């Protein structure tokens, strides 16, 4: 295993995580409660409490390259049960922002799904579910995604064939436009 050099922690990284999340990562005393309650732990490469520990140690690379931060679904178990009232889910969110900004996306499909979703919102103002699926498949090439659900779905008439366009869709797309124009990178989320 790798030795973590303690002489050169990335203090800027620790500071950025703290500032963007508004959480004091030093308040974590590593009780492991977040890991204990995390439903996604089985799919993680780093348990939540280890993500917290590595943040405390200023290990930017190890944290931002982890799969865990992409798999977290913000279910709030960790936040709700943290004895030190740290909003762990928010820290996971912030780490994901930072990973995105740094160009890491270790879970390509998760990112692709999110992107597809937001593209749909930007275009129509509301989510067009069939459109999301189509975009997602285009982005990932995973043609067989959920095709097994079709027999159950189609007769129920649940997926509309056309997107729900709204009058204010321009307003919504402008929100995205302004967001991209603004230098969002150093923004205190």
């Amino acid at each position: 295993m790798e030795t973590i050099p303690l002489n050169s922690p990335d203090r800027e990284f620790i500071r950025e995580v703290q500032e963007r999340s508004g959480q004091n990562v030093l308040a974590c005393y590593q009780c492991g409660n977040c890991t204990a309650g995390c439903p996604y732990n089985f799919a993680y490469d780093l348990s939540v409490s280890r993500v917290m520990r590595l943040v405390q140690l200023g290990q930017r690379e190890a944290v931002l390259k982890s799969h865990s931060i992409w798999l977290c679904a913000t279910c709030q178990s960790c936040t709700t049960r943290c004895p030190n009232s740290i909003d762990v889910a928010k820290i996971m969110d912030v780490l994901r922002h930072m990973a995105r900004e740094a160009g890491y996306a270790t879970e390509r499909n998760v990112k692709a799904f999110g992107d597809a979703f937001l593209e749909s919102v930007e275009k129509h103002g509301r989510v067009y579910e069939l459109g999301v699926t189509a975009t997602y498949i285009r982005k990932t090439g995973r043609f067989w995604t959920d095709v097994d659900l079709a027999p159950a779905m189609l007769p129920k008439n649940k997926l509309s064939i056309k997107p729900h366009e709204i009058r204010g869709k321009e307003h919504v797309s402008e929100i995205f436009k302004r967001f991209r124009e603004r230098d969002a990178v150093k923004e205190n989320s």
Partner: protein
Amino acid sequence: MSISVGYYPGCSGSGTSVEYDKSTRAVCKKLGIELHEIDDWSCCGSTPAHTVNHTLSAALSARNLVLAAKQGQEEVVTPCPSCLANLRTASHKIEDEEYRPKVEALLDESCEEAASVASTLQLIIERVGIDAIKKAVVKPLKDLNVACYYGCIMNRPPELMKFDDPENPMAMDKIMEACGATVLPFPLKVECCGAAAGMPKKNIVTELSGRLLEVADSLNTEIIVTACPLCQMNLDLRQGQVNRANGKSYDIPVVYFTQLLGLALGLSAEEVGLSKLVVDPTPRLRFADVL
């Protein structure tokens, strides 16, 4: 008693959870709640938005709260916990005088006047009340063993949601009891179902939803009652996927609490959109003399 509030159906209400939207509107009408759908509402951004940027997420949500205020609504309710979480977070952010300008910059309009937001579940519990529901029940759900599943974000984090107990919520349990059902002590009320991972990481959903179905099944649950479109979809639509992945053959109907409540209040199966469910609940409901 007349209650009048703004209504935010959320995108899934016109797609995968059309029956939730339908039954919510029908139940509210029955209970004397006037829902005024926000004209020209847009998507709250859901999970993808806040995983990209918190201000973007707040702006997408805030647009609706500002719109509602302009349309004269001080309070907005939404059936979807995911929308609720986003709208509520946005609401907090635009109350913060330091944060508000950031949101306003994206939105290009003032957020000073914005509606507050709550879930329809909270509205029904707090403003209609259990006693009134009991009185309004015409078709008790006798002999029906239900497990109420709230999902992970209906009550959490408690600092934001400020509704019900974050670990052992009872709102739906009480409503179902008021409807005459036998409510099982479902221990995984707030465990995550796998959320939006269905498409990109199916194994997560099959694992997590699998656990929920397993525990529900061990309690001899006849029907799982939910309040979240995503939970419902994972447990109902994907129940087949879950079964295939885990080598099981569960066949547990998963319905929205508004659907069962609606039936108890005397609405028809059509009015609460029962036919939209994948795992068909009608045999059990017939057996229990609800249909």
